[in-house]
């Protein structure tokens, strides 16, 4: 591997600001989730400091929520660690897919940017890469904007959760799903996506139907859908050759 000197423009202040601004709209999808994590931590007896420390350093909502559901006294070190490992496995292929933006980075910029990677900022960065911009600071900016909202909403959830008591099926919690729906639009590249996306959805539903929990429906759908897309690409290239 040859870590070439980073050319100008691959990690810029402008990119960082653009990333943060672009992510702002999506933070709306994150906010109710932060409230839930704050409430769950409060319900399990975590102090405000412990709750904020967890949200600040882990910064991965679903895995925090699952870990908190398993929480016991004393704290379940192994179970919480395993929950994060399994549920966040989906982030591993995301980092790999961001290679076009990350390849020129090294050291703290590279691993620091990866350390705060989340689903939503990943999607925004993929859209950036596809439109020809490879400024990884955009990713960092987007992730950190979400991090700030994540911290504020976790704090509010912990402080006021007991007073509000929203039922689990409340429409507010649909915000995270709606945010992912809106993310699908910029990720869409045209008709060649139809079949891989259908395969991804059906495999995920199938895995869920078999009673498999997180992260297996997501991983099965994501890998199966991506493999379908890659196979179709190859088929098309052969047809052309």
């Amino acid at each position: 591997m040859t870590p070439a000197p980073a050319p100008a423009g691959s990690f810029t202040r402008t990119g960082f600001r653009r990333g943060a601004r672009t992510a702002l709209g999506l933070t709306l999808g994150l906010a109710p989730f932060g409230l839930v994590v704050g409430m769950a931590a409060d319900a399990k007896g975590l102090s405000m400091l412990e709750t904020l420390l967890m949200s600040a350093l882990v910064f991965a909502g679903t895995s925090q929520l699952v870990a908190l559901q398993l929480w016991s006294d004393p704290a379940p070190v192994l179970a919480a660690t395993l929950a994060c490992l399994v549920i966040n496995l989906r982030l591993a292929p995301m980092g790999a897919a961001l290679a076009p933006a990350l390849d020129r980075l090294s050291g703290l910029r590279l691993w620091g940017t990866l350390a705060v990677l989340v689903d939503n900022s990943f999607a925004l960065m993929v859209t950036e890469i596809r439109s020809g911009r490879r400024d990884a600071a955009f990713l960092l900016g987007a992730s950190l904007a979400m991090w700030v909202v994540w911290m504020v909403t976790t704090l509010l959830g912990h402080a006021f959760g007991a007073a509000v008591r929203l039922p689990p099926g409340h429409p507010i919690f649909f915000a995270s799903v709606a945010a992912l729906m809106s993310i699908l639009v910029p990720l869409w590249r045209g008709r060649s996506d139809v079949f891989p996306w259908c395969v991804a959805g059906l495999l995920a539903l199938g895995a869920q139907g078999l009673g498999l929990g997180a992260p297996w429906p997501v991983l099965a759908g994501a890998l199966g859908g991506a493999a379908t897309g890659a196979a179709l690409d190859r088929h098309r290239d052969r047809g052309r050759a």
Partner: protein
Amino acid sequence: MTLRWDVLAAILGMVAATFLCRAGGYAILRVTRPPPFIQAMLQHLPGAIFVAFLAPALAQGGWPAWVAGGSALLVQARLGRMVLSILTGVGVLWAIQALQW
């Protein structure tokens, strides 16, 4: 403002596991040159991940979730504003639930 040692240990375990996931996929890619098929897969992965995430979530919510999700999608495709899209999704689901009861 207490910080218990067992809680801190659990949090640090969670942090280490999550960082391993976040950085691990790219770290492997950086040291090995993946075959062309894997590289093509990575191109298709982003859309597939989110579809695979959404399909079970919508299925669990039943038809109101599909309608609300579809409205969010439509608003994003037409207007390109994520805030509006998210508010529409939540609003439509809210309206459906209100009408049902």
